[in-house]
């Protein structure tokens, strides 16, 4: 009895001694942020941990917004050093950072991610335009009978939208609103698709809110199915249902090329080269942000930046490309590598 009490108190003492020691300093890099960047930054982190004497960075997949929330919480070991993002930092997030004393931030763009539309190989590949996608998925669309009027989406099959498309029910599996992929998809396809209608295009200047609502609201009548954050699940569902179309990141298409095929968008198929060259229209840049104040406090941040921005990592032949990240061109890479090296502080007006 006494012994066990002694043991328990020793354990406790140890725990708290440990935790206070930890509070005094952290010897590993803490990274948070986008789930899209996660598969890439984890590869770099692993490589970094194995080839240097630093500890392997810890990476949490919190989503871009969640990552900035933690990142901008303040300066100190309890806050992350780096935040991954599948979009550039917003002004509001930047301001929060400043308000919490996170003054100097270094922005590093790392490459691109293609967003693909794909269906099972058991069906024919789809040839779509962004306008088709807007018409298929928006909650309200321009009246098919003509006129500058919005009506609730009447389209039931792809053929209703364009006679050249198959006579199949519209059934799209995609990410939920919390996901960065969804944001990017809405911005890159829905919005662009919508602005092919002149009156919606004009709307942007006249009524920003209406424009946003029109271009960003996805129909809720069952044609768009929120399939959760797990892209593997979407792939499996596509395999089971040849009529459905899925929306996800390029790396999942890359890994499952035997089961699914990417839809051709505006005459470009989602291949590595097409995305890299910018021909394939639906792709977005990926970033990470570094807290400058931590650079000399937490060991290894500079070296991690060095690893990430090295040609063997993010180069066109680098290991990140093997994992499905679309590299930037050489000029851009050199620019951002230089900025990372100099720790160039981000400014925002």
């Amino acid at each position, binding site marked *: 009895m006494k012994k066990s009490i002694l043991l328990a108190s020793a354990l406790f003492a140890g725990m708290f001694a440990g935790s206070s020691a930890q509070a005094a300093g952290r010897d590993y890099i803490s990274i948070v942020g986008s789930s899209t960047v996660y598969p890439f930054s984890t590869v770099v982190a*692993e490589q970094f941990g194995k080839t240097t004497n630093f500890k392997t960075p810890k990476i*949490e997949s919190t989503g871009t917004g969640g990552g900035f929330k933690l990142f901008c919480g303040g300066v100190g070991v309890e806050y992350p050093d780096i935040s991954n993002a599948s979009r550039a930092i917003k002004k509001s997030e930047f301001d929060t950072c400043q308000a919490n004393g996170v003054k100097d931030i270094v922005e590093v763009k790392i490459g691109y991610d293609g967003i693909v539309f794909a269906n099972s190989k058991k069906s024919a590949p789809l040839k779509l335009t962004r306008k088709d996608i807007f018409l298929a998925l928006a909650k309200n669309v321009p009246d098919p009978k003509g006129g500058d009027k919005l009506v609730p989406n009447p389209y039931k099959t792809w053929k209703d939208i364009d006679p050249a498309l198959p006579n199949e029910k519209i059934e799209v599996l995609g990410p939920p609103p919390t996901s960065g992929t969804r944001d990017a998809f809405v911005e890159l396809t829905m919005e662009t698709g919508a602005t092919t209608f002149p009156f919606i295009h004009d709307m942007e200047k006249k009524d920003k809110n209406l424009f946003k609502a029109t271009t960003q609201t996805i129909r809720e009548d069952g044609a768009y199915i929120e399939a959760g954050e797990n892209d593997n699940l979407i792939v499996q569902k596509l395999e089971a249902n040849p009529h459905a179309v899925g929306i996800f990141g390029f790396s999942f298409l890359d890994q499952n*090329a035997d089961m699914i095929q990417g839809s051709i968008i505006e005459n470009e198929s989602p291949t590595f080269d097409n995305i890299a060259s910018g021909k394939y229209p639906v792709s977005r840049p990926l970033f990470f942000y570094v807290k400058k104040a931590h650079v000399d406090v937490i060991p290894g941040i500079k070296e991690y930046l060095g690893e990430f921005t090295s040609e063997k990592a993010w180069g066109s032949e680098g290991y990140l490309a093997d994992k499905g990240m679309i590299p930037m061109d050489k000029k851009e890479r050199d620019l951002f590598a230089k900025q990372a090296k100099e720790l160039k502080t981000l400014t925002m007006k």
Partner: protein
Amino acid sequence: MDQPEKNPTIDKVNRGLKRRYRAERRFRILGATAILTALCFLFLLFFSIVSSGYKAFEKTFIQIEVFFDPAEFTNENLAAANFPGLIKASMNSMFPEVTSRKDKKDLYYLISPGASFQLMKQVKNNPALIGQKELIWVAANDDVDMLLKGNIDRTRPESERRISDKQLGWLDTLAHDGKIKKTFNTAFFTSGDSREPELAGIWGATCGSFYTLLITLSLSFPIGVAAAVYLEEFAPKNRWTDIIEVNINNLAAVPSIVYGLLGLAVFINFFGMPRSTPLVGGLVLTLMTLPIIIIASRASLKSVPPSIREAALGIGASKMQMVAHHVLPLALPGMLTGTIIGMAHALGETAPLLMVGMVAFIVDIPHGFTDPATVLPVQIYLWADSPERAFVAKTSAAIMVLLAFLFLMNAAAVLLRKRFEIKW
């Protein structure tokens, strides 16, 4: 009694007898069907997990002949040597006919990126290797592994598989020369997480689970039992204790993510404990399991017969002595069972850990309560979400390991109960 030859009661009884037995039979059939259905689903679950996971317990290796070129080891730091270069050189010497840049890249692709770390470790352990030529088995890339396990169909058109025709040819040559083997995947049990499926293992997550559960157990068992004993034996029965009781019962049903939010607010933001550590995770799971343990402990305290309490009190034992000497030993098996069920619950939990940062990519094996760590179910969740196809099998294999742990814990519950149960 008056008419011994004719008893009207027994006639009535006999008339109803058939119906009564029918009802019993019906109920038995229903019960057996329910069990059978449940077993079928269980079997289906196990079958799907095992059938997709058993392959992960094997791993493909390729034999290469490495020349530890002394020219590469001029630097003091052995780790700085160009190990990938050594591997490339040995691949080149095996397939001298491969010359174009693209083909070479495809050729090197067959070997896992982890192979260079393996060489590094070997040289570190045995610097005498430098200058030698060695035959070494190194891990094959996950796509090669998948191909050899039959998960990649070589009859498909080249564009649809991740192994090209040329790579198939090289692999066939290697196989023909006996340079490919499949062995038990020890790395799966001894290494931490990795983004390369062939290198990824569950040891890191297992350690994380261990430390986390250790914290949970060492806090929730004493606190839970003490709380239950106090509430059941000492606390006055009034409105306050009623409110507490209702609250505890409610807490047991609160979605576990709420405990994560609470842990984030209290342990991390207020007490400033380190994120992503077993310390915080254990505390959060303690909060989650406490109500379960308290409820189970109270139930088993309640089931201790009052005659034992009376006997102890009647002889002049104080309340504390009555509880410690008589009630607790009798209630202990039930408390232990409750605790282990709570622990099993905690072992399988991911949602609350998400909030305290334990859903993270962590490669290094944790060595203490304040090292960043993840736990088994989180590892499963992370792998299930990975694009690489080879992680599908890993996911199922990790589920099998988790199930094995759960099974062990529940078996321990049964054993402990048998061991401590006091017969009367």
